[in-house]
């Protein structure tokens, strides 16, 4: 996907063909020369799982495609392969544009040590170039980076061009990361001065931009469990953990603090669920419904209401309790408008109600040990 976006933005990427049969793969090899035959499935680690094979000749390509097509890769059947031209790689570089959060600006990152994860590159081999907005990446900046990378002078213009196009993708695509790793110099042996090409690429797009529909042609990519997807569909932030106390609070910071508090009392949270700063009755009830379905040993709800009316939240909790008739301990900390009425309502229904976060967390941890 990333490579296709870059190709459309004019960044040179290896040539390739989508093939559905071994014969098509053989034809692709006849056209492109040595190729890599890659299973087209949306799962990671396909190389290790046998989903990528090298083919020097059309015959080898036919064999590789025959082996891969129809294969089951982590539960996905391979219907198509991508036959990609193999490059004669002379050097592997790293080039990315991302966001420097503390500088509040785009940041170009490059290294002459490409082909490995940038985290594994020693700090002194990493080149950083802050980019001022709204000026953007100017050609002279790309030349500075080319020079520091030690590229030959005749490659500076091509490097500048690619960096400029990556920056354009970064801005136009609302990206949080555009990465070419490796960016390769290839085919130098053929007498030409060598071409620069994005042999592999990654594009991370800002979830908020996607959420506003600004990049309709780019897919949301997330790795989430089915349960996580269900809760997130409610617009709530949710992460599964490996404990036994279901937790819900309103606000990311206080939810993390609630998990920390639970553990300080020896409790083991089974999830992070941020019901949002607003904490209105509707989503709270829906989220509680889902939490109950995971069979926790206890449920802790920590609501510090700003403008929320505690009696409404209490009523929503009571409604869920009555509907689902569950038996595990439910502990609710409720602070805000009408908090006294809210806690009274809860207690009347046999729900443990608190105004202190500390007491609620302690009680939840104890309840889970019973």
């Amino acid at each position, binding site marked *: 996907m990333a490579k296709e976006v870059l190709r459309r933005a004019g960044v040179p990427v290896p040539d390739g063909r989508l093939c559905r049969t071994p014969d098509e793969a053989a034809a692709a090899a006849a056209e492109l020369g040595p190729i890599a035959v890659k299973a087209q499935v949306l799962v990671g680690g396909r190389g290790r799982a046998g989903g990528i094979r090298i083919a020097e000749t059309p015959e080898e390509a036919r064999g590789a495609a025959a082996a891969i097509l129809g294969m089951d890769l982590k539960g996905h059947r391979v219907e198509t392969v991508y036959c990609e031209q193999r490059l004669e790689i002379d050097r592997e570089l790293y080039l990315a544009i991302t966001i420097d*959060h503390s500088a509040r600006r785009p940041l170009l990152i490059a290294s002459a040590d490409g082909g490995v994860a940038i985290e594994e590159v020693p700090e002194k081999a990493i080149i950083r170039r802050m980019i001022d*907005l709204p000026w953007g990446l100017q050609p002279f900046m790309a030349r500075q980076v080319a020079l520091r990378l030690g590229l030959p002078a005749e490659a500076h213009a091509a490097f500048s061009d690619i960096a400029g196009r990556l920056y354009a993708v970064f801005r136009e695509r609302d990206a949080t990361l555009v990465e070419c790793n490796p960016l390769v110099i290839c085919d130098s042996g053929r007498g030409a001065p060598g071409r620069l090409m994005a042999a592999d690429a990654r594009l991370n797009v800002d979830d908020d*931009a996607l959420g*506003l529909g600004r990049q309709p042609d780019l897919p949301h990519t997330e790795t989430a469990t089915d349960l996580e997807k269900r809760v997130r569909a409610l617009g709530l932030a949710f992460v599964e953990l490996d404990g036994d106390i279901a937790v819900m609070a309103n606000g990311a*910071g206080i939810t993390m*603090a609630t*998990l920390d508090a639970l553990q300080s009392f020896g409790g083991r949270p089974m999830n992070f669920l941020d019901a949002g*700063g607003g904490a209105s009755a509707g989503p709270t009830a829906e989220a509680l419904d889902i939490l109950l379905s995971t069979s926790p040993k206890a449920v802790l709800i920590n609501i510090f209401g*700003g403008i929320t009316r505690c009696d409404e939240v209490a009523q929503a909790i009571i409604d869920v309790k009555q509907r689902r008739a569950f038996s595990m301990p439910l502990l609710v900390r409720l602070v805000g408008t009408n908090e006294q009425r809210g806690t009274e309502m809860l207690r009347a229904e046999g729900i443990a109600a608190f105004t202190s976060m500390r007491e609620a967390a302690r009680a939840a941890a104890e309840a889970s040990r019973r």
Partner: protein
Amino acid sequence: MSILVDERTKVLVAGITGRQGAFHTQQMLEFGTRVVCGVAPGRGGREVSGVPVFETAEDAVDKRGATAAVLFVPATAVRDSACEAIDAGLSPVVIIAEHVPVHDAMDVMAFAAARGAVVIGPNTYGICTPGGKAKLGIPPGRIFHPGPVGVVARSGTLSYEIVASLTEDGLGQSTVVGMGGDPVVGLGFVEALKRFAKDEETRAVVLVGEIGGTAEEEAAEFIKGMDRPVVAYLAGATAPPGRRMGHAGAIVERGRGSFQSKRHALEAAGVAVAEMPWDVAPLVRAALLRGSGGA
């Protein structure tokens, strides 16, 4: 005294005719904030809680002399609305909306830097100077009480929790400011601390941080040179690495922004780091006592 906003701050509310904007305009007025005008394109000429509504910030500032802005516009409108407020000379400009695209946030921060304006947020509850002086944003007014403690926080409800516990403990606040939970925000810990360090009324500062990013580590560097005591609480001590905890910033990746890194940096700078939210108020009280004993 206080930082950034006080009883002289004349507030413009952008998006004042929306549900949230109208509700919080009423809340801000009840708090004592001088809300002098609102802006809502296409709805100029109306009134909201007695506050006149204008088509543009320029016009509103011309006619009502606003000095600061709070934006209740949706995420899609933030870039233009914030630039409009900045261009009209308003500062601080408080952006409440969450889910603002990060490229828009970067643009706004660059425009603010070029014009010398302070932006608070996006994805913040805002800023409040207690004692009925000024509230620009959405926090519940009842939790605040005027006093000597400055508070700066990344997360919202956690701020309320800690501010409420300070107030219950008799520790009032000079100004409470929410930086916002997004990865790119305007005013950061360091900028807030710089202002608290110069504010005569502020005698101690509470920093409410969380895992992810490097804002707390940068704050620690600045705190080394501060003469006022700082107490910190950090959320996310037990969060597993690599999982995003709600806030876009709240994720520990590649060893950066871990709880331990932040805690060590802050403690090395002389900050008392609270284990739990309810430990903050006692630590502040102890720091103030030491401070008045030593001075």
